């Protein structure tokens, strides 16, 4: 472990660093014949935690993930996905090799070590923790977020520190929209793709000119998802948003919002709340008799929602999601993932865990394909936009905004009597291809910023 004031060394150019960088580069160029490397070591001056972070036989990566608070349940699930991915990178698991074929046992000959801190889904806490990991452990990759507020903060932080960041769960349009950065990448679906995937399903099943009440958590995720979904329904099917109940993250008693909805004449409750907020607002909507009188719609699926509120409440509910374990019937990699995860942790993974696993696996792919930990090289590898296999079929990154082009899964809650096992809450209705769901790369104001 090195002291925190070493960090300043990274930004300056010492002779020793240049020599180290040069040696590293020459080594990698010998390993990778034909791979383009600059002639002069000075072309790759130290940047962020490179090369200090990747000089030993172990590289550190860190997650700031909520293990307490409103998103604690989802955070724990995410964490398990990262843990499994790191294990698979280090032992060269067959599933990992399907996604990142050049991973052997470890990454470029180094073991990967995962460091973890509880962010409580608070942006400032997450940034402080990652800063500590950068200073003390020279991490070469950061992750975390179950709240887009954290994702946006870590995006900015990653760009400033020049350390790569792959998001955890983040549903806001802003993450790869107006707050996108060169050093940040998102694997999962988001407000706009969710809206464009679930919108047609709602219109097909419920028709035009309906009245919907929205429940929105008061931060970037909530506002952008509500906007995308309501825009779709209003513009394409003449639906009306009769009320939008905005509540702070961590609300416990939703009675005042539900009272407004009860008096709004709505036929649908589009619940954008997430984590425990979604559990409580849904349970309380039932207490108020609003469900099943009004139909519940979940535009951005919440892991464990059905388990927590019970399948009686989610029966018949339409939701858009990133992954559901029964996709194992359709995709071989999904089957491998669900089996590995279930074996290790004793339950079938939710989409948060799948997202974490995939985001690390993709990073391992990019690093091993680039043959280098040098951040700009890894970024350029992502930006090649190559197609590769995933747990939801073939996917690729969009170079303009660093968003993965991937399908959105539409599910419907099963009736308790139709469940084949105690985790069989959702039926997959449709796997909607991703590209047509996405906005134009610059539509949300994405400007990626510099490589160095």
């Amino acid at each position, binding site marked *: 472990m090195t002291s925190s004031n070493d960090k300043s060394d990274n930004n300056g150019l010492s002779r020793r660093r240049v020599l180290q960088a040069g040696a590293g580069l020459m080594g990698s160029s010998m390993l990778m014949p034909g791979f383009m490397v600059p002639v002069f070591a000075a072309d790759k001056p130290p940047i962020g935690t490179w090369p200090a972070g990747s000089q030993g036989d172990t590289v550190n990566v860190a997650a700031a993930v909520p293990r307490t608070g409103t998103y*604690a349940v989802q955070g724990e699930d995410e964490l398990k996905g990262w843990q499994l991915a790191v294990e698979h990178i280090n032992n060269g698991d067959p599933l990992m090799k399907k996604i990142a074929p050049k991973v052997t046992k470890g990454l470029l000959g180094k073991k990967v070590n995962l460091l973890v801190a509880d962010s409580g889904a608070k942006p400032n806490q997450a940034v402080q923790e990652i800063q500590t990991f950068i200073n003390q452990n020279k991490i070469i990759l950061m992750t975390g977020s179950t709240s887009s507020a954290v994702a946006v903060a870590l995006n900015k932080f990653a760009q400033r520190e020049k350390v790569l960041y792959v998001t955890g769960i983040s549903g806001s349009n802003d993450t790869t929209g107006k707050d996108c950065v060169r050093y940040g990448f998102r694997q999962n679906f988001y407000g706009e793709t969710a809206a464009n995937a679930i919108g047609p399903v709602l219109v097909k099943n419920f028709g035009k000119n309906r009245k919907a009440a929205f429940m929105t958590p008061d931060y970037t995720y909530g506002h952008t998802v509500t906007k995308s979904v309501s825009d779709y329904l209003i513009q394409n099917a003449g639906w009306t948003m009769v009320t939008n109940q*905005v509540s*702070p993250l961590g609300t416990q008693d939703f009675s005042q919002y539900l009272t*407004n909805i009860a008096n*709004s004449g709505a036929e649908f409750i589009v619940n954008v709340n997430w984590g425990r907020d979604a559990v409580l607002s849904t349970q309380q909507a039932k207490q108020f008799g609003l469900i099943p009188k009004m139909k519940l719609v979940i535009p951005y699926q919440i892991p*464990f929602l059905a388990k927590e509120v019970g399948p009686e409440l989610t029966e018949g509910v339409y939701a858009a999601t990133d992954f559901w374990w029964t996709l194992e019937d359709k995709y071989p990699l999904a089957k491998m993932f669900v089996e590995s995860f279930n074996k290790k942790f004793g339950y079938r993974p939710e989409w948060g865990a799948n997202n974490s696993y995939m985001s690390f696996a993709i990073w391992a792919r990019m690093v091993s394909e680039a043959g280098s930990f040098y951040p700009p090289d890894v970024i350029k590898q992502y930006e090649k936009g190559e197609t590769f296999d995933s747990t939801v079929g073939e996917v690729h990154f969009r170079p303009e905004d660093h968003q993965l082009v991937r399908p959105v899964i539409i599910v419907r809650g099963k009736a308790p009597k139709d469940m084949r096992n105690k985790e069989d809450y959702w039926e997959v209705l449709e796997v909607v291809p991703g590209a047509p769901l996405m906005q134009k790369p610059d539509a949300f104001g994405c400007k990626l910023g510099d490589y160095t």
Partner: protein
Amino acid sequence: MINWGNFISQCFNGLVLGALLALISSGLTIIYGTLGVLNLAHGAMFMLGGYAGWVAYTYTGSFIAAVIAGSLFVMLVGVVVERVIIRYFYARPHEDQLLVTFGLGIVFVEAVRFFFGSLSKAVPPPPSLVGITNLGFMFYPTYRIALLGIVAIALLALYFVLYRTRIGMIVRAGIEDSVMVDSLGIDVYKVFMLVFGIGAMAAGFAGIVNAPVVSIAPDVGEAILVQTFVVVVIGGVGSFPGAVLGGLIAGEIISITSMFNPGYAYVMLFVAMTLVLVLRPYGLLGTAGRE
């Protein structure tokens, strides 16, 4: 949704919301008023009440048993904590008291998370109180209506103990001047232990009767604690009637504001608190100089 129907609905909802806040706040204010200790573990005790009740419910299937278990368990926790830890902090600076109770809160929350996990647990209301009731102006959950009565009875019981019994007289005297009570030959430490137990019990009772409304999770007390402080500041620190009044005002502010703009419901609560602090620093029913 600004119309008379919704206004009446929100006023009623504010009453229910406020009643619950009043109950939790009264425990906090009694402890602070008597012992001078700002108990930052109060939210965690609220949570413990919910979990103790949930365990009792799981084994017995009885809501009454759950309420009794939740209240008594947290009272016991309160008494033990006072005897073993808090007692040694009366003479120490307020910062130390804040730190030790804050730490206790973390220990309680994480212990519960360790044993029960983060997934929320539901305690259903008694069968006779399940469902919704037509109030004329809106349909309202039956249990929430009953909660109004349950809280009223609990507050009356607290009032009776504090204002109509000898022990209550000593407690109130302790709120005003604990040194004088001590010098009158009353074992003030025994009283303090009892007060801490009663305050904790109020939190535990609130925790379990609230569980059918808001399903419990280890963090359930965190948000409640903040609101409780606001209530105590508005009502007057150390004043039992102040806590009740503050609770009702807070409930109405949250509910009625949300009719105009839900995003400002909690903002307005803090605006109200600021106004009270500026215009009446000791709270609506507080007394100047009370600690």
